[in-house]
C-alpha cells in the first residue's frame, strides 16, 4: 500500500507544480542555511584543531597567574629562571625554557617605535627545541647560534610594516642606545603575535632591562609517550613546592595546548549554535509554509477525498497520503537544500582562503551533515502535514462528496 500511496502523492505534487515548488523553496532556504552554517562552523573547528595541532599537542605553557598567557600582559606575580629549572626536572618533561618579554623603543633610521622584544636562550639545546615549540621559522638570513649577543631576529611584520623603510638582513636597529644587527627575518606564522616581535638573546635583553632572573612565561615540551595532563599536574605540584604555595592559591597557571584548543572550540560551538538557531527560524517558516499548503490542498481536494473513500480508501490511507505528501515536499526541499548548502559552504571556504591566503576553513561534508538534514526535513514536513492530514482523514464521505 505504501508504494501505491507514493504514486498517488507524486501525481498530486506534479499536478500542483508551482505551489509544490514554492513550498519546497520555503524548506530549501532553511535547510541550506542550516547546512551551510554547520559546515562552516565545522570547518572552522577543524581549522582551529589543525592549527593548534601544528603547534604541537605536547606543549605546556606556564604563565603568571592572572595573565592571559600572552607574553605582554602585566601582572604582579612573577616567574623566574629558577622556576624554569624546576620545570625542566619534572618527570615527563623533555625540555623547558623561560621566555622573557619586554617592550622597548626601537629606532631605525630616524623613526622610533615601541616593539615587544622576546629574550631567549641561544644555547644549543634551546635552539634545537625552539622549532619544536612552534616558535618560529627563518625565512631570510639565519637563526641564532650559540655565542650571539647583540644580534636580533625580527618578525615578518616588523620587517615590512613597523617602519616606513623595509628592514633587511644586515640592517642595524638601535634599542636603548645599543646597536643590534638583524641576522634573520621570520616566516609569517599567520597567528599575528609572532610576526610583530623582535627576538634577541636573553642575556642582551637582561642587560638592557637590568632585571636579574625574571621570565614572562615558561614553555615545556612533554616527552614522547608521556601523559600531558599528568605531566602538567606534576609541574604544578613541583612549582607549588618550590614556591611554597598552597593548592588553590597558586600565583601561576599551567596550561596545555589541549585546554587552549578546548576553550577556543567551545567559543566556536556557542557562536555556531547561535547562528544555526537563527537559520532554524527560517526552517520553521518553511514548515509553516508546508502546513499552509497542505491545509489548502485538503480543502481543494475535499471532493477527491470523498471519491477515494467511496471507492475504498480507509481513513488511514487518506491520512498517509497527506502526511507523506507533506513529508515528501520537505524531503525534496531538504535534498536540494543540502546540495545548495554544500556548494555554498565550499564556495565560501574557497573565497576565504583565496583572500586570506590561509586555510582558515577546512570544510568537510560528513555523511551526518547529508543524511541528518534529509531525515530532519522529511520529519518536519510530515509533522507540518499532520494536522491537515488528520482533518482530511476524518471527513465523512457523504459530506465531502457533496462539497462544491
Amino acid at each position, binding site marked *: 500500500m505504501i508504494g501505491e500511496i507514493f504514486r498517488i502523492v507524486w501525481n498530486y505534487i506534479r499536478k500542483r507544480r508551482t505551489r509544490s515548488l514554492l513550498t519546497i523553496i520555503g524548506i530549501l532556504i532553511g535547510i541550506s542555511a542550516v547546512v551551510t552554517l554547520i559546515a562552516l562552523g565545522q570547518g572552522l573547528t577543524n581549522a582551529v584543531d589543525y592549527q593548534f595541532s601544528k603547534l604541537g599537542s605536547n606543549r605546556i605553557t606556564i604563565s603568571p597567574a592572572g595573565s592571559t598567557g600572552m607574553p605582554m600582559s602585566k601582572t604582579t606575580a612573577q616567574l623566574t629562571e629558577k622556576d624554569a629549572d624546576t620545570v625542566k626536572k619534572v618527570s615527563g618533561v623533555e625540555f623547558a625554557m623561560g621566555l622573557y618579554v619586554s617592550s622597548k623603543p626601537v629606532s631605525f633610521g630616524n623613526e622610533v617605535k615601541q616593539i615587544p622584544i622576546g629574550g631567549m636562550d641561544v644555547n644549543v639545546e634551546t635552539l634545537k627545541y625552539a622549532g619544536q615549540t612552534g616558535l618560529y621559522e627563518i625565512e631570510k638570513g639565519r637563526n641564532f647560534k650559540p655565542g650571539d649577543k647583540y644580534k636580533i631576529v625580527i618578525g615578518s611584520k616588523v620587517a615590512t610594516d613597523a617602519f616606513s623603510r623595509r628592514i633587511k638582513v644586515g640592517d642595524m636597529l638601535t634599542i636603548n642606545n645599543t646597536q643590534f644587527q638583524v641576522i634573520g627575518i621570520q616566516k609569517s606564522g599567520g597567528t599575528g603575535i609572532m610576526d610583530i616581535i623582535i627576538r634577541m638573546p636573553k642575556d642582551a635583553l637582561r642587560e638592557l632591562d637590568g632585571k636579574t632572573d625574571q621570565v614572562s612565561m615558561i614553555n615545556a615540551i612533554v616527552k614522547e609517550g608521556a601523559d600531558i595532563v599528568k605531566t602538567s599536574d606534576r609541574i604544578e605540584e613541583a612549582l607549588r613546592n618550590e614556591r611554597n604555595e598552597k593548592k588553590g592559591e597558586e600565583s601561576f597557571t599551567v596550561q596545555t595546548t589541549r585546554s587552549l584548543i578546548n576553550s577556543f572550540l567551545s567559543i566556536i560551538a556557542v557562536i555556531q549554535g547561535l547562528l544555526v538557531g537563527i537559520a532554524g527560524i527560517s526552517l520553521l517558516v518553511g514548515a509553516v509554509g508546508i502546513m499552509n499548503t497542505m491545509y489548502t490542498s485538503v480543502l481543494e481536494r475535499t471532493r477527491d477525498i470523498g471519491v477515494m473513500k467511496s471507492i475504498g*480508501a480507509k*481513513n488511514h490511507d487518506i491520512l498517509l497520503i497527506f502526511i507523506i505528501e507533506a513529508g515528501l515536499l520537505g524531503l525534496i526541499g531538504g535534498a536540494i537544500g543540502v546540495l545548495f548548502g554544500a556548494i555554498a559552504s565550499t564556495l565560501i571556504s574557497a573565497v576565504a582562503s583565496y583572500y586570506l591566503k590561509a586555510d582558515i576553513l577546512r570544510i568537510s561534508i560528513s555523511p551526518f551533515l547529508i543524511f541528518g538534514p534529509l531525515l530532519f526535513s522529511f520529519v518536519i514536513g510530515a509533522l507540518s502535514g499532520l494536522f491537515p492530514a488528520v482533518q482530511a482523514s476524518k471527513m465523512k464521505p457523504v459530506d465531502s462528496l457533496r462539497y462544491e
Partner: protein
Amino acid sequence: MAKPVIELRDVWKTYKMGDTNIDALRGMSLKIYEGEFVAIMGPSGSGKSTTMNMIGCLDVPTKGHIFLDSQDVSHMTESTLARIRGRKVGFIFQQFNLISAFNAKENVMLPMMFQDIPREEQSEKAEALLEMVGMLKRMAHKPSELSGGEQQRIAIARALANDPQMILADEPTGNLDSKTGNEILALIKKLNEVDGKTIVLVTHDKGLAQKYAKRIVQIKDGQII
C-alpha cells in the same frame, strides 16, 4: 428468487439542524436482489440521496439495520465500511468525480490500489476495462482533456475495477446531453444483462427509469410509496 444483495430493514436517519431534528428516512425497508435493475425516484428532499448513501454504505443509519450480502453493516466503523464498499459497490456519479491529477488509466486503477492488488494485475485489469468501455486509446489522458461522455465511461470502468456485485449510479446522465446519456445507460444496461451486475439507478427522469429499469421504487417523505 435470488437472495438480496442489499436489504434496508426499518431504517431511520435523523439529522440535527440546530435545535430541531429532521428525519430524512422514516422506517424505510427495501430489498434489492441479485441481478436486478432498480430505479430509485423521488422529488428532492424526499430522502432519495440519503437512501442512496445507505445502499452505498457511505453512511450509517440512526436506527434500523442494513445488510450487505447478509452482513449487518449498520454499526461498522468508517474504515471497515470503506474496505467493504471498495470491494462490493461500484459508484457512478453525476459529476463523474474522476481524480483530476490522475490520467484515465490511473483513475481506473485507484480502487484496486486501495485493495492491495498487485500492480501488474491492476494495469492489465484497467486496460481491459477501458477497452470494454471503448476508452483504451484515451488511457493516458487527464480528465480535463476528455468530454463528459468519455469521463463517464472511464468512471464506469473505475466502478467495475474490483468486480463489485452492485453498481450504484447517482444521476449518471444528469450532466450529459440526451444522446450521450442514452449511450451511457445502454452501457449500464449491458452490465446488468450481460454481466449480471445488480444496478441501482437514482434518477428524477421518469422516462429513463421506465426505459431501462426493471423495477421502480418511489420515495416520498423518507418512505417508499
